[in-house]
C-alpha cells in the first residue's frame, strides 16, 4: 500500500467523524484496519485530530451541541472497532480523568460534551455521572488513580459543592495526587481560584486544552 492511499484513508475517517457520519466512520475504520494501518495511528492521526477540529468549530460558533453529539456518535462507531485492538495502557495516552456533575446537581449535558471531547482527545475518561458525592471523587483519585478530577455544575446552589469536593480531596490526603478542573454556566476563573482549583474552562473544547496543559502536553 502506498503512502498516498494510507493518507487518504486517514483523511476519510477524520472527515467522517467531524461530519458526524457514523456509518462512514465505521466503514473507513474497517478499510484502514484491513489495509494494515496500525490502530494507534488511526487514533493519533484521525480520531484525535477529528475531535479537536469538532471542538474548535464548537468554540468558534460554527458547531453547536447537535453537531458535537453526532461527531461523538461517529467517534464511538470507530472506537468500537479500534479500542479492542489497542494494548491496555496505550488507550490512556494523555492521562486518566474522572469527571462528574457535583452532588445535588443532575445537569449533565455540558459534562457529557466534555466527556465526548476528552474521550476523542486521547484521555481515558471515568465518567462518574451526575449528582456525584465528594467521596466518589476521592475514590476516583485514591483507588482508580485519576490524574485529573473534572467537576461540573449548572447552578449557583450546587456550584458550592465544588468547594466541598476540593476540601474532601484535601482531607483524604489525595489533593496532591490529582489536578482539579471546574466548569459550568455559573463558574468563573475567579471562583475556581477561590476554591483552589487548578483550572477553569468556559467551554468543552477549552476543557480538553486545559486538561492537556495540566498533563504537560501542548494543547
Amino acid at each position, binding site marked *: 500500500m502506498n503512502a498516498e492511499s494510507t493518507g487518504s484513508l486517514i483523511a476519510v475517517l477524520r472527515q467522517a467523524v467531524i461530519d*458526524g457520519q457514523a456509518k462512514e466512520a465505521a466503514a473507513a475504520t474497517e478499510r484502514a484496519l484491513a489495509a494494515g494501518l496500525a490502530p494507534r495511528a488511526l487514533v493519533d492521526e484521525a480520531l484525535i485530530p477529528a475531535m479537536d477540529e469538532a471542538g474548535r468549530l464548537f468554540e468558534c*460558533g460554527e458547531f*453547536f*451541541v*447537535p*453537531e458535537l*453529539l*453526532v461527531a461523538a*456518535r461517529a467517534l464511538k462507531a470507530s472506537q468500537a472497532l479500534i479500542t479492542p485492538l489497542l494494548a491496555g495502557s496505550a488507550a490512556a495516552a494523555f492521562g486518566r480523568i474522572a469527571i462528574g456533575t457535583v*452532588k*445535588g*446537581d*443532575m445537569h449533565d*449535558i455540558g459534562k*457529557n460534551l466534555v466527556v465526548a471531547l476528552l474521550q476523542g482527545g486521547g484521555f481515558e475518561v471515568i465518567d462518574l455521572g*451526575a*449528582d456525584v*458525592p465528594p467521596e466518589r471523587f476521592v475514590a476516583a483519585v485514591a483507588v482508580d488513580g485519576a490524574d485529573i478530577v473534572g467537576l461540573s455544575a*449548572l*447552578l*449557583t*446552589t*450546587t456550584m*458550592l459543592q465544588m468547594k466541598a469536593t476540593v476540601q474532601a480531596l484535601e482531607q483524604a490526603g489525595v489533593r496532591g495526587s490529582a489536578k482539579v478542573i471546574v466548569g459550568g*454556566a*455559573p463558574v468563573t476563573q475567579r471562583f475556581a481560584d477561590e476554591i483552589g482549583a487548578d483550572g477553569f474552562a*468556559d*467551554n468543552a473544547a477549552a476543557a480538553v486544552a486545559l486538561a492537556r496543559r495540566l498533563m504537560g502536553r501542548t494543547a
Partner: protein
Amino acid sequence: MTSRERVLTAMRRRQPDRPPFDLSFGFSTAQLETFRSRTGADDPYDYFEVDTRMVWPGPTRLTTDFSGYLGPLPPGTVVDEWGLAHVPTSSAEGDHAHLEGYRHPMLRLESEADAAGYPLPDIDAAYRYEPVREAIEDIHRRNLAAMAMLECTVFERAWYLRSMERLLLDFSDGNALATTLLDRITERRIAQAQHYARCGADVIAYGDDVGTQRGMLMSVQMWRTWLKPRLARTIAAARDVRPDVLVFYHSDGDVSAIIPDLIGIGVDILNPIQPECMDPVALKRAYGERLSFWGTIGTQSTFPFGSPDDVRREVRSRIDTVGAGGGLFLAPTHVIEPEVPFENIVAFVDTVKGEGR
C-alpha cells in the same frame, strides 16, 4: 396606575408610573421557608404586591399508566401527566425543579408509530380551563395582570419525554419520530393557547430554552427548521382568538441570534435577558421599538453574590436605561435559589416600588 394598567402600558412600550415587577418563577423551598419565618406572611406574591399572577390549566381527570414506558423507578419518584418521571437527588432541595433528576419515557422508542401512539395528556380539554377563567376573573377583580403559563411550549416538552441528547440526534438525523412528537405537542399547545386567550389572559407566557450562555444551543438553521414554525403556529392561534393578547417568550441563555425571528412571529416580550450573557442596554437600543424586556436582574450574579446596594444599583440602572419610554418589566432572571440573601429580595422590591413614589 393599577398593576394591570402598569403591565399593559409598559409591555406595549409606553411609559408607566414605574416599571412593573414580579418574582419570576418563584422561590425555592428553602427561600420560601425563610420568607415565611422573616415576614410571618404566607404568599410572597401578595406580601410583596407583585403586578402579575400566574395561571395554569386545572387538574386532569386522566390517570394514564406510564410504567410500560418508564420501567422500575427509585423511591420518591413522581410521574407527571406527560409521563416524565421526576427523580429525587441527594440535594436537600430535591423538590425544587432545578435539583431533581428526570427519567424520559420516550427514550427507547424508535418509530414514528411509537411517537404517534404515545399517550399525551388532555391539556387541550375544555374542562381544564373552567378554573382558569375563574382565576383570571379574580385576578382582574384585584386589578392585577393575568399571565397564562405555556412554558416548555414544544421543544422542552419534547425533550423531557425523549431526552435532550436523543432529540437533538433525531433533529440531526431528520427522524420522523421527532416530527410526529413535535406536531402532536404543537396541536395541544395551539388549543391551550386559544383557551387562554378566550379566558382573558393578559399575557401568554411561551417558552423553550434554546440558548446557552455562549449562544444558541443549536444552529439558527436547525431552530428555524424544527422549532420556529411550530412556535409561530401556537402564537398565531392565540392571536386569532384575541389579537391584542401579549406574547411573552422565555429562553435562558443568549438567544440574540433569533430575536428578529421571534419579533417576526409575533413575540412582544423577551424573558429573562440574563445579564451574565446578554446586554439589556444594547438590546433595548437594537430592538426597543418592537420588543419589551422582562427580567434583567441576574440570579446567577447579583442576586446570590451581590449586596443589597448592588441590587439597588442594578435595578436603578435598568430603569434609567431599558425602562426609558416603557418596555421594561423587572424580575429576577430565574428561580430565586436557596443561597440568595433575603435582604437582596427586599432591596429589589423596595427599589422598584420606590420609583413610583
